[in-house]
């Protein structure tokens, strides 16, 4: 590079440490301490991307997290690739690879640039208006629109990095380590508060740390020197923790905040091994101090988006912090004094300033006089009306503003430049404050929204609170902090500020042009290519609410969330509509403040840790025996046990047949188990189940159905009376926690007078169900001491027993219609008892079966599964289970709802059996049921809820819900499928052994 843009003046840059990196496949050099943006600028590169809609060339605009244009793809085509990263935030390291987004084939020549020429026919709402007609064509348009839209590319392979979540509790959280944040942290920590100070940047001190101006001094020292000493002091404080590269993403109610701590992104890839990349900090602070500073406003004029146009404050930062000149021939365009600070920084290093264009007629501050003394021409009362240069600005034209600032007058003057700094004043960064629920107030004098009503124990200080001058910041920060901490003494005895800046500003949201607005391109939202013309169009088309204008024009909807231009959009709306800005309010600031990676959000919950899963005590046996698993709630349940390359169907057919022909064994440990004790336990069950419980003898079991108060079936299961005042209830696997919650609710809130205690014991017992005609023989071998005769141990009863020395409970209950015994034993003995049963059942072909076979077997018997055959719209009457609803009981949960006008309708959907005309044809679960396919529209009568091929009945069986199904026995219905109609007959839902002979059959 022939030109020298690097000045050896910055202590933040380590010039002994050269770093090479790639940008768009070309190698460049920078220094340690550079951001990608500063390193590119030092190499004379401004053009880094193309805009979203018009593919206009765009350059680096800012120096921080507010950057709208310089968003790049990091490490494209690698596992660590990341899209939409702000070049202004990326710290360079050896081997960094970055590339431009949204351009093809290259950022210098982009085919999409044609959109810029087509822009007259691409107004706001273009997509909405054009592609909505005809509606059916959307699917075809969408493919092309999606392809041409979108910025970066998402990674295609697994992220190799580690992420984690941390909880932090502190007395005081200070967000932002600028001058006011540093002061706040010091005062908080010195007053005994456990304090956390965070800043998104890699260094402390904010913009004051590189403020070496003679025009703003503290105690007669340069601001930067004074602040350095302060930072030195606080870094030694014991109860202050400081985290840099930590960006607060969200500020929720009750001072709960989320922050992302970046730990390795600034390191070369080979130094990241085994390190946590990013941490999501979940911070609960007693007090929060927001010191997030302010963001410089751009100015809105024609072609204000060319590469080489930067915020004036960014130019200052690049030269002061990084020692990088953004241009060799600069022009500054401002409406306030801060641009003169930039001018001084450039002058000090001998960098040429061609001119300063100032909106204001009157410019009188010490600093402006000083600038003028350096022979720099200041055009007072002028405005930039246009800019030139395609890939980099090379010229501007300026005109005089009229007195009211609404038009430009006189002749056009052209000025050469390769860099234009703009300053439209400052916008307080109130994003986090409003996220927390804070209410803003509009300050008319300088047209800013500032914090007004705090929803929690927090304050905003410094420029995010609308204090822009150094005097105001220091004075008001100290005053606010004393009040906030309720202390008399700040740590600062005397502070004297010298400032040569004046606070005057001439605010014009949309600068006038000599062209008609339709011919201008004045960008308000750079990233989304929304112009002032678009906003005006939205208003002409009748949009009034700022939220509607935002959505119609997409202003503020990019990855930068409109940090630069949102205020201008509001200003243009209120100016055009003739309303007051304060009345419009702002659009909602949503978290996160800057984008978070998915990795950070997910933390360690990836792969097998994605969700919690629960294993039964017999799980390892299932694994060892080739089981396939099914997720039921959080449980892993054995689904089926394929043998010799069986598919699922073959395995289930074999298991089902074995269970009915001889013996099957099921791990039922996942069933919810609730231990119920107390003198009112029987009364309690009476109230929660639909059937009667008072007369159940000790040692007996009963099936119960539980409703919601609206009469709909909620859960079911068998409950056993273990003693006079002691029951054990079983619930469905998925419903266990909710049932316990519901029972607790009634017990605590409606019936506190009942003496009943509930405990969840699901995990305490392993439950092994042995079923089939030979089940009795098998369990007799496992527990030889127990009399299993039908006389001593009939169906629906329970016995205490011992296996070896271990106590267990045996229930003779059945979900399959076969004789079956459920052994409940302390969980850690589950696997050994299971193995004992397998051993005892060897001669009887005992066959382990999974949930699929269980479902098939129960369907043959017409037993429902709550949640599969029911969906919270079915009453027990709808399920043809009238027999379980007690007529005698005065009340139970849901009783009154069973005879509401709606629940007694005859044409409700009711559970029925379905048999296919062709017995080999198995219906699809969820398929719709109709009676007439010729009628249009076809009336849907119901749907199939369960469907299987029964190896025992040698035909297809199904359950379904059908309107008025109860009265349709024997009727023909149709299941219309994609390419055929299946004829079915409505049948009794009990397909096998309706009399229940098998339960007591003697072999």
């Amino acid at each position, binding site marked *: 590079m022939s030109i020298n843009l690097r000045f050896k003046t910055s202590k933040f840059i380590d010039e002994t440490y050269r770093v090479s990196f790639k940008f768009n496949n070309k190698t460049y050099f920078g220094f340690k301490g550079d951001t990608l943006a500063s390193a590119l600028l030092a190499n004379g590169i401004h053009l880094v991307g193309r805009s979203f809609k018009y593919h206009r060339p765009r350059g680096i605009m800012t120096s921080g997290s507010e950057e709208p244009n310089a968003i790049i793809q990091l490490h494209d085509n690698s596992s660590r690739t990341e899209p939409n990263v702000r070049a202004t935030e990326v710290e360079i390291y050896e081997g960094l690879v970055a590339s431009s987004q949204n351009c093809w084939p290259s950022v210098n020549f982009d085919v999409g640039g044609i959109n810029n020429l087509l822009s007259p026919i691409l107004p706001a709402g273009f997509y909405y208006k054009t592609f909505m007609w005809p509606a059916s064509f959307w699917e075809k348009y969408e493919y092309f629109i999606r392809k041409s839209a979108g910025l970066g590319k998402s990674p295609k392979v697994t992220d190799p990095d580690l992420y984690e979540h941390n909880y932090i509790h502190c007395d005081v959280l200070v967000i932002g380590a600028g001058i006011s944040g540093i002061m706040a942290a010091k005062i908080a920590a010195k007053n005994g508060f456990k304090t956390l100070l965070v800043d998104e940047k890699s260094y402390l001190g904010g913009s004051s740390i590189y403020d070496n101006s003679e025009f703003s001094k503290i105690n007669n020292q340069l601001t930067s020197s004074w602040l350095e000493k302060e930072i030195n002091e606080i870094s030694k404080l014991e109860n202050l923790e400081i985290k840099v590269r930590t960006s607060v993403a969200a500020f929720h109610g009750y001072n709960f905040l989320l922050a992302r701590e970046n730990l390795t992104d600034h390191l070369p890839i080979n130094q990241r091994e085994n390190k946590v990349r990013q941490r999501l900090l979940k911070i609960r602070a007693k007090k929060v101090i927001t010191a997030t500073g302010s963001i410089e406003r751009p100015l809105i004029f024609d072609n204000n988006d060319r590469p080489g146009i930067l915020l004036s404050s960014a130019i200052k930062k690049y030269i002061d912090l990084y020692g990088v000149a953004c241009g060799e021939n600069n022009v500054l365009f401002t409406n306030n004094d801060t641009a003169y600070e930039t001018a001084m920084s450039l002058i000090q290093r001998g960098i040429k300033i061609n001119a300063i264009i100032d909106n204001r007629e009157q410019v009188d501050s010490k600093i402006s006089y000083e600038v003028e003394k350096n022979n720099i021409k200041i055009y007072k009362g002028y405005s930039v009306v246009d800019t030139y240069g395609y890939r980099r600005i090379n010229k501007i034209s300026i005109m005089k503003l009229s007195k009211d600032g609404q038009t430009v007058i006189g002749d056009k003057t052209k000025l050469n430049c390769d860099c234009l700094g703009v300053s439209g004043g400052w916008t307080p960064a109130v994003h986090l404050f409003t996220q927390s629920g804070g209410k803003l107030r509009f300050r008319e004098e300088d047209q800013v929204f500032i914090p007004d009503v705090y929803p929690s124990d927090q304050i905003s200080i410094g420029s995010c609170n609308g204090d822009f001058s150094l005097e105001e910041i220091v004075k008001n920060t100290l005053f606010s902090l004393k009040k906030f901490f309720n202390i008399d003494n700040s740590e600062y005895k005397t502070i004297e500020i010298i400032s040569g800046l004046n606070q005057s500003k001439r605010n014009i949201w949309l600068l006038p042009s000599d062209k008609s607005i339709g011919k201008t391109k004045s960008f308000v939202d750079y990233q989304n290519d929304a112009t002032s013309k678009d906003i005006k169009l939205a208003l002409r088309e009748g949009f009034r609410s700022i939220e509607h204008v935002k959505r119609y024009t997409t202003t503020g909807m990019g990855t930068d969330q409109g940090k630069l231009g949102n205020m201008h959009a509001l200003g243009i709306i209120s100016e055009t509509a003739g309303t007051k800005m304060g009345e419009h309010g702002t659009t909602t600031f949503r978290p996160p403040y800057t984008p978070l990676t998915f990795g950070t959000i997910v933390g360690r919950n990836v792969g097998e840790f994605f969700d919690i899963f629960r294993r039964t005590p017999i799980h390892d046996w299932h694994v060892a025996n080739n089981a396939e698993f099914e997720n039921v709630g959080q449980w892993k349940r054995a689904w089926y046990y394929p043998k010799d390359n069986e598919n699922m169907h073959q395995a289930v057919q074999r298991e089902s047949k074995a269970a009915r022909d001889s013996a099957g064994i099921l791990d039922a440990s996942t069933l919810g188990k609730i231990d119920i004790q107390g003198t009112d336990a029987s009364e309690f069950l009476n109230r929660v189940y639909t059937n009667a419980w008072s007369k159940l003898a000790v040692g007996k079991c009963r099936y119960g159905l539980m409703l919601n108060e609206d009469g709909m079936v909620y859960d079911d299961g068998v409950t056993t009376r273990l003693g006079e005042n002691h029951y054990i209830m079983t619930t469905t696997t998925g419903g266990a926690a909710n049932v316990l919650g519901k029972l*607790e609710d009634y017990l605590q*809130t409606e019936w506190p007078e009942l003496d009943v205690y509930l405990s969840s014991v699901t995990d305490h017992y392993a439950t092994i169900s042995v079923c089939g005609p030979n089940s009795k023989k098998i369990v007799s071998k496992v527990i030889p001491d127990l009399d299993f005769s039908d006389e001593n141990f009939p169906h629906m009863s329970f016995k205490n027993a011992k296996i070896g020395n271990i106590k267990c409970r045996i229930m003779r209950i059945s979900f399959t219609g076969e004789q079956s015994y459920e052994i409940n034993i302390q969980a850690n003995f589950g696997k050994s008892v299971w193995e004992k049963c397998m051993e005892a059942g060897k001669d009887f072909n005992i066959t382990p079966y999974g949930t699929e076979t269980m479902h098939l077997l129960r369907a043959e018997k017409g037993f429902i599964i709550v949640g599969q055959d029911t969906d919270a719209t079915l009453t027990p009457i709808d399920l043809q289970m009238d027999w379980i609803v007690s007529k005698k009981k005065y*009340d139970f949960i849901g*009783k009154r*709802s069973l005879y509401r006008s709606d629940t007694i309708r005859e044409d409700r959907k009711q559970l029925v059996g379905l048999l296919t005309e062709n017995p080999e044809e198995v219906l699809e679960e969820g398929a719709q049921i109709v009676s007439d396919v010729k009628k249009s529209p076809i009336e849907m009568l119901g749907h199939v809820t369960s469907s299987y091929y029964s190896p025992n009945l040698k035909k297809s069986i199904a359950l379904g819900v059908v309107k008025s199904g109860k009265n349709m026995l024997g009727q023909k219905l149709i299941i219309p499928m994609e390419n055929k109609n299946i004829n079915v007959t409505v049948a009794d839902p009990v397909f096998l052994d309706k009399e229940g002979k098998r339960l007591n059959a003697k072999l």
Partner: protein
Amino acid sequence: MFLINCPFCGEREQSEFKAGGEAHIVRPKQPTELSDDEWAEYLFMRKNIKGVQFERWNHVHGCRKWFNMVRDTSNDQIKAVYKMGEKPPIK
């Protein structure tokens, strides 16, 4: 995320709790005596107001106790918490 002062355990994170809808709706003692409309009033009708609302909460991942809360739904300020069966400390 709220910090909730469970009347039994003290201040805990909201993630330990479950909201249970409007408070002080007593289940009728004799549901069978009620007309459809009266029963529907109990079963379905909830105020869901913007402003000060009386709610039921359950410390489901803690002591499992139900309690009441007075919360301003417009700004999520919790005005009071009190045990089941107690009268609201504020109107």
